[in-house]
């Protein structure tokens, strides 16, 4: 049925204002955004907020439970771990690693994925086929396994783990970009730009990219949560952050055996990961709806 053209076609908001307006109306997305901003603030301000040095071991306060428990101690809001290190401080500093790494990974995968996908989508032919098959091979291997292999080759360290996760997340960006570019190339305004003399890089960055940003933004937000989970998994396996680095995944790993004795040492990092991933997923969903021109707000 023909779409009935109504209000939103003549709205006075710019495309960016439109997106923000629709996002603002989505409560879960806004809550998620607030939570993420809160976490980012915590990470950035860690040196100022953290009550203790995350590496300092207080040998007389080992395995102290968090605040609300009977045996808690003042100064250790969320308790201590088996080496007497303050959980709260470790979590705060850990946020720096997890969030920053997540962000860096997404940026790397996004930028390289978009470049490769753009080439595939605009050049077509043999180049496209080669790129696609390469991506297919990468996607065929289970993500964690692929990451493990890459880290095993490069050697266990946080940087290598980040690189491995970036590579694992790359194919999705390539495929989405390629598909979006191919669909854009058939649009009349792209044709008009070509007839205006734009081609190659200029055509892509100037004309096409602004129109394919929606699926990419959504993928980036969702990849952020994947990135954090994958880094945590690698940390858990001992292939990423090395102790005593307080990255959330390795916090989980090093406290594995304590789950019955001192559950807070395991649940708190786990909770931190959960909250971050949930928030970024909710934000991603909200963005997807806000960016979709067909979804309207009442």
């Amino acid at each position, binding site marked *: 049925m023909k779409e009935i053209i109504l209000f939103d076609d003549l709205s006075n908001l710019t495309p960016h204002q439109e997106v923000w307006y629709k996002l603002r109306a989505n409560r879960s997305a806004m809550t998620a955004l607030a939570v993420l901003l809160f976490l980012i603030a915590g990470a950035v301000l860690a040196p100022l907020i953290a009550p203790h040095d995350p590496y300092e071991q207080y040998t007389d306060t080992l395995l102290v439970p968090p605040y609300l428990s009977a045996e808690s101690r003042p100064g250790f809001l969320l308790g201590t771990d088996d080496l007497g290190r303050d959980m709260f401080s470790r979590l705060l500093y850990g946020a720096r690693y997890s969030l920053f790494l997540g962000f860096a990974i997404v940026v790397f995968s996004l930028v390289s994925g978009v470049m490769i996908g753009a080439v595939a989508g605009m050049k077509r032919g043999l180049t496209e086929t080669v790129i696609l098959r390469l991506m297919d091979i990468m996607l065929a291997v289970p993500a964690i396994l692929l990451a493990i292999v890459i880290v095993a080759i490069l050697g266990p360290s946080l940087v290598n783990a980040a690189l491995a996760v970036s590579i694992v997340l790359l194919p999705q960006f390539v495929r989405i970009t390629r598909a979006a570019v191919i669909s854009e190339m058939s649009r009349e*305004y792209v044709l008009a730009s070509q007839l205006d*003399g734009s081609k190659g890089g200029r055509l892509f960055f100037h004309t096409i990219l602004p129109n394919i940003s929606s699926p990419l933004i959504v993928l980036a937000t969702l990849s952020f949560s994947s990135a954090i989970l994958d880094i945590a998994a690698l940390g858990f396996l001992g292939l990423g952050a090395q102790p005593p680095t307080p990255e959330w995944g390795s916090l989980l790993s090093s406290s594995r055996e304590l789950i019955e004795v001192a559950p807070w040492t395991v649940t708190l990092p786990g909770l931190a990961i959960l909250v971050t991933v949930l928030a970024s997923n909710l934000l991603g969903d909200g963005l997807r709806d806000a960016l979709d021109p067909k979804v309207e707000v009442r």
Partner: protein
Amino acid sequence: MPALLSVSKISKSYRESTGFLGTREKEVLSEVSFELESAQIFAVVGESGSGKSTLARQVVMLEQPDSGEIFLHGKPLQSEAAVHQQIRMIFQNPVASLNPHKRIYQQLEEPLINYAGLSQSERANRIRQSLEHVGLDADQASRFPHMFSGGQRQRITIARALILNPEIIVADEAVSALDVSVQAQILNLILDLKDEMGMSWLFITHDISVVNVIADRVMVLYAGKVMEIGRVKDVLENPLHPYTRKLLECVPKMGASLNMDFNEELSYPDVVVPSTESGCVYRNRCPLADQICRESEPPMISSANQSAACFKA
């Protein structure tokens, strides 16, 4: 003096798949020729499948014809840059031909940035002039396309075409998607621009009644072949080709009721004769068709100002 644009016997085929593994060549344009003079509006009329949009693509050098040549000022089309500047195009759907994420002035600026080598303030001036030429307020240039109505958007695309001062503008169904009242405004605009700026228009349409308003000469296409070509006055008042006559008959005229002959209803089959078969491409729909029409392709038979590809003309 050579014509401004001379299209000589161009043909174009596309590969299409015929089922599982097969492909075949589908001839979309077949030996189409015509000439466009300066300050002239030349209409190309055809229904779906006539090849008219493909013709537009060849003229703006978006594609190369498989055979035949196109001459601009007597010289074959060679440089893409030259063609982009001298032969500009506007499209049917004003919503689809403007980038939804770019402000108007950015879209008008693009051809200037690529080709005109002007300073920023010179560009701003040209943009302003262009918008005023098409009857739009230049202050609106910082807005996005969705803030304009359909008719206004089409004016913007015309401004974009004008901005490089082209010699020819190809209008591919430029008014077909517009309301009748808006269509009238745009047709007037095109006539005004032709008078003021002296450019020629290649006006592609399926609506033969619009041809009478706007064009000087007209060419009728069917299944990629030229059926009739000539001065608008002659072709519309005295059509030589049965297809032209059919098109003119089918246009609903106010106050005329339908001819309710049931047999007539069925006698216009949906199938177009494939180009691989012999004879006139219109024969299975033509009331005058006979043996010779099935055997050989009719030549162009010319009278004073008109030609038609028909044995019965």
